[in-house]
């Protein structure tokens, strides 16, 4: 019996995915009011990856992420109030309203910041692993990034160094087949990104990025490998983003991607399919599911209340935190 078979893990995976979905859908519903003045890169459709990976992480493990970070930080347990207030540019925000949606942080949850420069966090997360190794600590550094980040120099530089120094890094490539509107086929000579990791001597797996169990299993093997001191591990998780690159709208109307492609992936909704799987196997009842959803919705609503009440930063804040 594998770990993912345990009921608690499955419920946790579902809870994390639902939390992300409810959170992102709330953004979609409030965004037209135009008082959330920050560009949002929504994670809807990709939830199984954050859930499957983060369910294998411990509080002290580090997570680095990108412009599309909401799911990763929610799944890692970052404070919800702080995230929502940050989206509204309020002082109660995790970055005191100075970062916005693309720059979330929660050091208590190991969330060490996110870079909106494509490829940037690959190097930072690798450096965090260097710090871990130098201090002989018992934790790992997980880095989430897109297929677009694999185009950057920092990708090759970070993978090589992590392998060379056997650093405790988990590379998680979320291949949603697009970098803004540019399809992977226009950018990659070889579509299997994980093969590049193998070329650096890094073991890699290629789980179905829309199946939380598959991601969980692969990430659990990866985490065990890393925690045993064997160096980095690479996961390529193929998935699909439902919304436009940025903002709450669908970009299909604009002709950014073929409609049929989206329809195919909607069928494979990571949340819906997982719910169905748990219901069918008896892992959860309809009533328990409704309760879970209600609890998450209440949590999200409470965070929105907190954010709305939090004040905007005053003029003094403009020049603080530039330097220590």
């Amino acid at each position, binding site marked *: 019996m594998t770990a993912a078979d345990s009921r608690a893990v499955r419920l946790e995976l579902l809870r994390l995915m639902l939390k992300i979905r409810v959170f992102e859908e709330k953004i979609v519903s409030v965004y037209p009011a135009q008082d959330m003045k920050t560009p949002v890169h929504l994670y809807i459709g990709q939830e199984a990856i954050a859930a499957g990976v983060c369910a294998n992480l411990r509080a002290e493990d580090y997570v680095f992420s990108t412009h599309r970070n909401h799911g990763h930080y929610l799944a890692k347990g970052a404070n919800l109030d702080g995230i929502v207030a940050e989206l509204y540019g309020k002082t109660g925000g995790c970055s*005191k309203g100075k970062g916005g949606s693309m720059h979330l942080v929660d050091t208590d949850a190991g969330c060490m*910041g996110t870079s909106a420069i494509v490829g940037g966090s690959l190097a930072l997360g690798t450096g965090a692993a260097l710090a871990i190794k130098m201090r002989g600590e018992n934790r790992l550094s997980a880095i989430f990034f897109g297929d677009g980040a694999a185009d950057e120099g920092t990708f090759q*530089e970070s993978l090589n*160094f992590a392998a060379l120094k056997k650093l405790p890094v988990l590379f998680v490539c979320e291949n949603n087949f697009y970098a803004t509107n540019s399809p992977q086929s226009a950018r990659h000579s070889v579509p299997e990104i994980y093969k590049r990791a193998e070329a650096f001597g890094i073991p890699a797996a290629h789980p179905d990025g829309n199946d939380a169990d598959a991601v969980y299993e692969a990430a659990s093997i990866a985490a065990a490998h890393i925690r045993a001191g064997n160096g980095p591990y690479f996961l390529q998780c193929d998935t699909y983003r439902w919304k436009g690159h940025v903002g709450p709208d669908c970009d299909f109307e604009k002709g950014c991607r073929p409609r049929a492609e989206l329809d195919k992936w909607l069928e494979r909704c990571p949340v819906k399919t997982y719910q169905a799987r748990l219901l069918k196997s008896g892992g959860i009842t309809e009533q328990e599911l409704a309760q879970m959803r209600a609890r998450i919705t209440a949590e999200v609503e409470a965070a929105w209340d907190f954010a709305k009440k939090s004040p905007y930063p005053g003029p003094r804040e403009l020049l603080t*935190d530039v*330097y*220590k």
Partner: protein
Amino acid sequence: MPWTKVPIDKSEFENTLGKEGLRGRSYRQALLEAQTQLLESDPSVFVIGEGVDDAGGVFGSTLGLAQKFGKERVLDIPIAENGLTGIAVGAAICGMRPVFVHMRMDFLPMCMDQLVNHAAKWRYMTGGRLNVPLVARSIAGRGWGSAAQHSQALHGLFNHIPGLKIALPATPYDAKGLLISAVRDGNPVLFCEHRWLYDFTGYVPEEMYTVPLGQAVTRRKGGDVTIIALSLMVYEAVKAASALEAEGIDAEVIDPRTLVPLDEAALLESVKKTGRVIIADTGVKTGGASAEIAAVIAEKGFEFLKAPALRVGSPDSPVPASPELEKLYYPGANEIAKAARALCGKK
């Protein structure tokens, strides 16, 4: 004060401060000593860069560190400056204090992204929850036809980026004291050295001491004209001041020591006294450190000025290779003295 003195060469030190029994060390030895003491006293410090552990030891400034502290703390790296800078930044975010060493300042543009977009901004973007105690040492080269890609003094380029600090030690004393301050500072600091300063000898105490970032020093007192000089130009300014003295011009030489933070008060105080100012820099004039200092004086000290502020720096061309062109490219004591004469109404 012995620590403000700028002996022009080793023999001058030996004939003056050395005779008084003061400890003389070269700029390179001062850097090496600072890093040795930092590595000894703080387990979070590490030195990282291409060739930091090799037989040359970055012009001798890291020589023997790897033997003493091991290759885990004195790391040679792949030729991947941007990625490795990001890795150092990541380690710094998690509490380490990396000293990143570049043989040439010309390699800093390779890490522009990690320095400008990440190191400089991580603290602000996280609302002060995290900071980046990274020091990036780099050395400006000059001469022997090293040309356009191995001779640049690019500190001015980074002056434009809030979140970075910039130190330009001119003396061995400051090389050690500023480096220790930079490593302890907690912010990303670009530590801009000059290759021609490496053999200069000056007073360097053995104990660990700091020179605060943001505190200018007066290298020579004078009442007629202020020469604000950076890095190697401090020596050119002191030479110019000696020549000017014979002509009856009493020049004050001020060394800001750090461009960020800039000790504006000290600069303005001197300009208030003399009413005339020259800014002498190792980089090109346009958009550079000298331009910024001139702008600060224009904004905050205009009423003190009896004449326009003048800049002495390199012209707007890449650094040439030919020795004859190099001579034209680099201004020195002569150009500074000429500017002073013009300001003071003497030919």
